């Protein structure tokens, strides 16, 4: 399988709509970088959802060599629109890569606007995660307008798409392949590359045979307790 791990910049940002798979991809991307011996932190900037956030797997990530920066203690269990100062500092100054796992949609990605100044001082790479099986991003046209909304709200320039088509852990390869052309069409219209694809690890190799861009095999961390 082709390697997806070419983070050219210290700051790597994942944005996208609710439930597009940003967190799952950020976690797996960070873990893969750490496995290569890189110094990696992951900033959980989700201020809009109360569950299925990267802070929930902080200990698991630590074992994989990824430092999760997230509100601590009681504040971990809130969805308040605030980012603790130590996280802001770490994003600006942490050595090694910092992966930014941002909340969904216009509302969740607005938090990135706060880091606008830092982004101007230092270059970054930002990717838009998309799953056409999700509402509001099921056609190329919808994806294009969703991306524009988030670029404006987050004040970031999106460098490419991450194709993450799936219908949950029971998805088959056919479910993934059905939506690959939708992501490809959106990428063409947006004049931006598909940076990589993502698929549950048992399907990644099969998907790689069908697409030319690399495929990130996913370990699924964001599952309800009865599936973990």
């Amino acid at each position, binding site marked *: 399988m082709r390697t997806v791990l070419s983070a050219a910049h210290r700051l790597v940002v994942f944005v996208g709509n*609710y*439930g597009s798979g940003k967190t799952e991809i950020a976690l797996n991307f960070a873990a893969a970088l750490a496995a290569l011996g890189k110094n990696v932190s992951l900033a959980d900037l989700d201020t809009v*959802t*109360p*569950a*299925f956030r990267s802070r929930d797997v902080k200990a698991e990530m630590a074992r994989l060599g990824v430092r999760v920066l997230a509100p601590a203690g009681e504040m971990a*269990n*809130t*969805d308040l629109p605030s980012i603790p100062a130590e996280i802001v500092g770490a994003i600006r100054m942490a050595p090694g890569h910092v992966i930014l796992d941002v909340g969904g949609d216009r*509302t969740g990605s607005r938090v990135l606007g706060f880091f606008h100044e830092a982004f101007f001082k230092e270059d970054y790479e930002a990717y838009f995660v998309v*799953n056409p*099986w*999700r*509402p*509001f991003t*099921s056609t190329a046209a919808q994806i294009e307008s969703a991306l524009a909304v988030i670029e404006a709200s987050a004040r970031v320039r999106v460098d490419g798409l991450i194709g993450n088509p*799936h*219908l*949950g852990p*029971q*998805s088959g390869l056919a479910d993934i392949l059905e939506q690959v052309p939708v992501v490809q069409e959106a990428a063409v219209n947006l004049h931006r590359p598909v940076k990589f694809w993502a698929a549950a690890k048992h399907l990644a190799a099969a998907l790689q045979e069908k697409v030319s861009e690399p495929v990130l095999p996913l370990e699924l961390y964001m599952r*309800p*307790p*009865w*599936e973990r």
Partner: protein
Amino acid sequence: MAERMLMKGNEALAEAAIRAGCRFYAGYPITPQSEVPEYMSRRMPEVGGVFIQAESEVATVNMLYGAGGAGARVMTSSSSPGISLMQEGISYMAGAEVPGVFVNMMRGGPGLGDISPSQGDYFQATKGGGHGDYRLIVLAPGSIQEMVELMQDAFDLADKYRNPVMVVGDGMLGQMMEPVTMPPMRDLSTLPAKPWATTGAAGRKKNIINSLELDPYVLEKHVQSLKAKFDQMQATEQRHDTYLIDDAEIVVVAYGTVSRVARSAIDAVRGEGIKAGLFRPITLWPWPEVALARVVESGRVKAFLVAEMSTGQMIEDVRLTVSGRVPVHFYGRYAGVVPTPKELAGVIQNLQAQLK
């Protein structure tokens, strides 16, 4: 919009409501269900419906009273503290026989509590909630697909009985994603007529929607007619589901999120030869007493284990039905803590050891 989709519970129930013909949503945001108003604010204008972010939950329920009284299919959604604020209006709607759908994505309480999943509002949903002699049909989905289906039924039942219907989930069911297949959009012209609605009295006698009646003998007659509806609901609307119950000696009784945990726990202990099964109420009210009594009368069950994300609320209904014929045990996690399959499997194993 595609028919097959991957959806969060909160999004799925909102889309399902629109498919069921809901064209009026009022609400006030509260975690863990704010995706519902957010989704509605986006979708209602697309289907020619009305979305209102009300100034409060009290305003919300009164908007439902008005729009429901005028004949629209209406709904709101909230989470525990917000549902508490709506109770007065729910009682008014039941009294005035105004249909409407209420969704409660329960969170940890009492008081402001936390924003994590809970089932602490069972009593509130099934035993009154507001004042006066009334009942709500309370539907408790165990998956996102079932949530979609029960939302259709919720609107139909509300209209059929001219009574509010409540759908209860929790923060977990609201936030988790599962693949769903959406039913087609209902043709609004095929919905049942509402000759009682306040649609403008031109050319006919006035319709009046009101819950005030100062003559106790007249009010008593009205409450008797309400009771007749509730009796009919009890006789015809009980629903439940079972899993591996045919040979079960230990029967777990659980609904919603806990029923999912229970299924995993039952699978685990079955692997060790423990004959465990699940009884899952789908209607919390009317309580599925007929089916549960049949399980008791089968004579196979040696113990019930009621598992809830509360300190023990549904267990009272289980005990009433079981009536002391079989021991009823309890396991609860609450205040926002979701039990794991492993810990519930441990409880079943301990119970099995006691039986021997």
